């Protein structure tokens, strides 16, 4: 009986292909995203191939200009009644407003079938939920808090070991300075400074204080001596930058390490793409440090959300797409090109590079990984703090106490 039914369905399907021509050869899903750089679109291409091989038909809507350009486009389409099948978001609270308005399709059934709970780290499993329902299919895991260093520069300065504490780090930075090189390649754009500050906050301040500030938005944690200590370390780093740092792009700063002009850079793992592009090898030409202090891995990434569609066929394509995104093949294919690590912990990661291995090792231990600040807190709070951190960095006359006090004020205002 079932076979008969399959045959019947197959025949009908064939007929409909014959009738409608070439276009109906798969479950069509329009995917809106902002991955447009060389490496990024290659990664998307890989994912699309896996989806097409599984019987889907990937319709690519890539919007250049980053999330802040692409997100409003997607939002307007959703609000205007012409939603894409799937839309990229950064992992975290960005999707909450849409979910709150009932515009997103809950993925609870798909997640249960695919056993997402078992294959994701608890932190990520929580991050794709809103009010108890799952709305996002996560695709990748980016490490935010790396310190990359140039091995030739370390050698020239006579540094033999990776620094493990901030005292050692400052001693090493002094050595680099004495060798006539730039100790820290700072990209002075506010978001880069924010990332740098949080790198120190997580490493030196520790996991607890980091989570209290960003997850619980607990102002008491900001008033601690430990936080002040972190702020002082951050401020001290001003003395190790070069004059060209204001408004410098992150990839230009990475270029200073590639050219062996500067010692270290605070940046996420996407910087690895720049090194690889310049034919530099992890472990030989450059290295990566988690820390100094505690070596906790700060992770964030991208998810896809699925707007509610009335058309059943289109909804079916969404299901297939969500399953593809979370499949082992999809995860490996995408992440090997993107520079991030797979979000599933059960895929074979032996082919990934040294830094990625370091990251995965940390992610497997729930006590050594946290979500990034822009996953934990609303954009509004994160970015208001970004302004403050940038102001603190560029204005040495602002005292640490003023900085702490204004931070507290910002958190209270944004609540």
């Amino acid at each position, binding site marked *: 009986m079932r076979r008969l039914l399959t045959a019947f369905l197959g025949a009908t399907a064939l007929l409909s292909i014959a009738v409608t021509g070439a276009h109906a050869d798969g479950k069509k899903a329009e995917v809106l995203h902002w991955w447009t750089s060389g490496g990024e679109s290659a990664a998307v291409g890989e994912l699309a191939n896996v989806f097409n091989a599984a019987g889907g038909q990937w319709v690519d809507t890539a919007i250049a200009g980053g*999330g*802040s*350009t692409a*997100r*409003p486009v997607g*939002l307007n389409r959703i*609000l205007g009644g012409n939603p894409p099948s799937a839309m990229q978001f950064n992992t975290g609270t*960005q999707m*909450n*407003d*849409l979910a709150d*308005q009932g515009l997103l399709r809950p993925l609870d059934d798909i997640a249960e079938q695919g056993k997402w709970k078992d294959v994701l780290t608890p932190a990520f499993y929580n991050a794709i939920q809103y009010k108890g329902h799952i709305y996002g299919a996560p695709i990748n895991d980016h490490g935010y808090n790396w310190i990359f260093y140039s091995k030739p520069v370390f050698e020239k300065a006579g540094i033999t070991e990776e620094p493990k504490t901030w005292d050692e780090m400052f001693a090493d930075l002094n050595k680099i300075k004495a060798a006539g090189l730039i100790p820290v390649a700072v990209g*002075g*754009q*506010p978001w880069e*400074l924010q990332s740098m500050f949080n790198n120190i906050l997580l490493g030196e301040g520790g996991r607890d204080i980091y989570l209290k500030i960003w997850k619980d938005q607990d102002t008491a944690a900001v008033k601690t001596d430990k936080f002040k200590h972190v702020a002082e370390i951050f401020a001290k780093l001003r003395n190790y930058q*070069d*004059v*060209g*740092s*204001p*408004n410098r792009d992150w990839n230009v700063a990475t270029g200073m390490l590639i050219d062996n002009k500067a010692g270290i850079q605070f940046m996420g793992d996407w910087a690895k793409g720049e090194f690889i592009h310049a034919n530099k090898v992890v472990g030989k030409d450059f290295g990566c440090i988690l820390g100094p202090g505690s070596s906790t891995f700060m992770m964030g990434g991208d998810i896809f959300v699925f707007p509610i569609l009335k058309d059943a066929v289109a909804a079916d394509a969404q299901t297939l797409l969500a399953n593809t995104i979370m499949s082992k093949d999809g995860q490996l294919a995408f992440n090997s090109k993107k520079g991030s690590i797979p979000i599933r912990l059960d895929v074979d990661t032996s082919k990934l590079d040294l830094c990625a291995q370091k990251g995965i090792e940390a992610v497997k231990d729930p006590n050594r990984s946290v979500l990034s600040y822009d996953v934990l807190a*609303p*954009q*509004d709070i994160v*970015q*208001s703090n970004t*302004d*403050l951190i*940038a*102001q*603190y*960095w*560029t*204005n040495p006359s602002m005292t640490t106490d003023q900085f702490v006090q*204004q931070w507290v*004020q910002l958190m209270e*205002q*944004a609540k």
Partner: protein
Amino acid sequence: MRTARKRQLSAYVALFPAFVIVLFAYVATVGWNIWISFTDSKLLPVNTFIGTKNYERLFNTARWDISVINVVVFGVLFIAGCLVLGFLLAVALDQRIRFENTFRTIFLYPFAMSFIVTGLVWQWIMNPTLGLQSSADAIGFSWFRFDWIVQNDRAIYVIVLAGIWQSSGLVMAIMLAGLRGIDRELWKATRIDGIPAWRVYLHIVLPILRPTIITATVLLSISVVRVYELVLATTGGGPGISTEVPGKFIMDYLFGRSNIGLATSAATVLFIAVVIVVVPWLYAEYFREKRRGIV
């Protein structure tokens, strides 16, 4: 009488589409913007009224204060700079010099460039590791320091400089047209009276050029209020947040920061500020004088 009314009617009919556009595209959106600024809108506009909370937060935000101060500094220096330089260029060209056309094209040329291109060019010129300073270093003038763009308290002047470079050509063109409109007889009369040329320009020509100056000022003021891409391309608002401007504040909160409520309240404040400054002045300049029958 009837034909006059008919003519009036057809004028209204012709203006009707424009009227509809103004009503819906401008007045209605301004009204909606003001309403949204009193709501708890974050990523999406919602209709939850929260009173003046957005405004309270706005005026407690350091970045907004910096933005407002910057736009005032930029506005005053930019408009004054453009007017003075534009007028001097126009006077220079008005001396019936050779190659006037060539010079006019050269001076007007920067205006053909967008603020983005202008900003980028000046960013490179002023960058101490790429531009003027590093060139001077390279040829041995290591005493030469020109690093305003990386200094907290000077970077805004770089933006003023770039803005003046871009827009003074436009002012020159407008002023030159005004100068050419002045009766030659006037010059003859002053020459007979033996008045020095600079006094003629200062005390006779400038007052005659008043409407021209007003036109130029209005045009420049519009670019001051909406200044956004120039800052974005030149300093990105940095170092830190020291060159932020209201336009950028609004754009950032509207899109990147998903706080429509705060963005619209900033836009409303900007709108009211413009109305308070511009409307009485425009009224005084255009309508009052018309009534007196001077213009």
